[in-house]
Structures are given as C-alpha cells and as structure tokens.
C-alpha cells in the first residue's frame, strides 16, 4: 500500500498503481492516471467506456469481459484504439477499479 499524489491530492494506490479506495476517485484523478498511461486527453468516447466499466462493476462486482464491452459499449477495434497497449487494464485503472481478474 502506498500513497501517490494525483491531480494534487493524496490517493491510496497498490503497487501497480490501481486505486485501493474507489471513493477517492474523481474525474481529475482519472485524467491524471490517463496521462501516466499515455493518454493525453480523455474524450467523450473514453468517458463512455469508463462509465460503463464503473456501472458494470457496481452491478456485477467484476469487470466486464472484452466480449461484453464489444456488445454493450464500444466495438473491440475501437476499444483497443482508445486505450492502446492493454485496453481493459488501462481503462480499469483510469476508472479507479481493480486490475482485471479474468482471462478474457
């Protein structure tokens, strides 16, 4: 457990940089994590994914699979373009959610 200054506030993160406490999350923190992950600006499309992950996580207690995101949120191709180099991991981290725990 460590703390890190993101968007000017102290937040609890784990050793891989995922937020430990989702209640500390806000949009400025999301933007700060996104920058660290190489996404300069979060567009409306990014927010659509982030909000979908958060709602789904709240309802189901787990992150959606790539397949579910493809059906219910954005097509797979677009998902990979929006969050290049590990879309689900990156999007989950930016959304203040835990690291994906499924193989798919």
């Amino acid at each position, binding site marked *: 457990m460590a703390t890190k200054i993101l968007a000017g506030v102290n937040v609890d993160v784990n*050793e*891989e940089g995922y937020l430990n406490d989702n209640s500390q999350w806000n949009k400025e923190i999301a933007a700060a994590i996104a920058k660290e992950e190489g996404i300069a600006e979060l567009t409306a499309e990014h927010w659509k994914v982030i909000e979908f992950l958060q709602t789904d996580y709240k309802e189901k207690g787990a992150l959606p*699979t*790539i*397949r*579910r995101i*493809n059906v219910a949120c954005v*097509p*797979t*191709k677009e998902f*990979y373009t929006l969050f*290049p*180099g*590990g*879309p*689900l*991991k990156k999007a989950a981290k930016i959304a203040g959610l835990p690291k*994906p725990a*499924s*193989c*798919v």
Partner: protein
Amino acid sequence: MSENPAKIKKVSIIISKGSLDGIYPGLIMANGARMEGIEVNLFFTFFGLYGILKKYNKGIKIATVGNPTMRVPDAKGLPLPTLVGLIPGMSAFATWMMKREIEKLDIPPIPEMLEMIHDAGGRIFACKATVDMFHLTKEDFSPQVEKVLTVGEFYEISAGAQIIFT
C-alpha cells in the same frame, strides 16, 4: 511484485491440434496477449487448421476416445472408459456440456473468437504445407485469415517473438 525482467513484447502461437481443447488454449492465449498489449501472430497448422475453416470451425469437438483424463458428468466425476466414449453422440454431448461452461465464462465460440482477436490487432495465418496437403483455397478460410505462410515466412514474421506451440 518482484523485479520484472524484460516484458514480453511479441508472441507467435502455433495451433496444431484440431479438437476443442486443442484450439481454444491458443486462442485464449492470443487474445490475452493482445489484452496485455503484446503483439500476436497466430499460425494454424495440421488439424489445428480446422479452427480457421469457416465451414468446420463451428463444429469443433472434444475427443471422448483417447482422452484418458476425461471425467463425466463433470471434471470431478467418474472416468469415461474409451468403450463408452465410442458410443455415437458421446463426443457431441461432451462438447455441448463444455461449450456451455465456456459460454458462462463469456468466452466466445471459435468463429467469434477469431473476429475478436483480429479486431484486437492479432494477425492470423495458415500453414502452407497443410493447406497444400488438404487441398484448400482462400475461400475455405474464415475472413480474418490474412495469408498462407511457409515455415520460413512464419519465422520471418516471428522475428523477436517468443514462439508457443500448442
């Protein structure tokens, strides 16, 4: 986590077996690699090639004969004797049972999984020797198959990659 040595950047996955449990592991590893931002080339050879034949890849089955680890009705059940596995319909039934479990994990059927890997930027190839041996043409393949490759071309494409044979 301990000190990370060099991160894997690129993998080549060879799928050589044509049963359900021969094809899925390679597909899951390929998709998982893309999810990690790892570059992926998938190469289908011998009976594994049926995984990318659009006429047949919906009907890929589990072997109930010659599969001594198989148990029924579930993974902790009784061993399935070869002579019982021989009964017509056994393989189809076992396949149906397993597909149901696969679906529960939200792992798509093979044709959809190829599409998913392709959309994720994974590249899919067929083995030239097998294609010639089976007398196949481009029309036999799923649309995601990019090219038929010789072994030499496969190694060229795999430059700098880890090669995984399944």
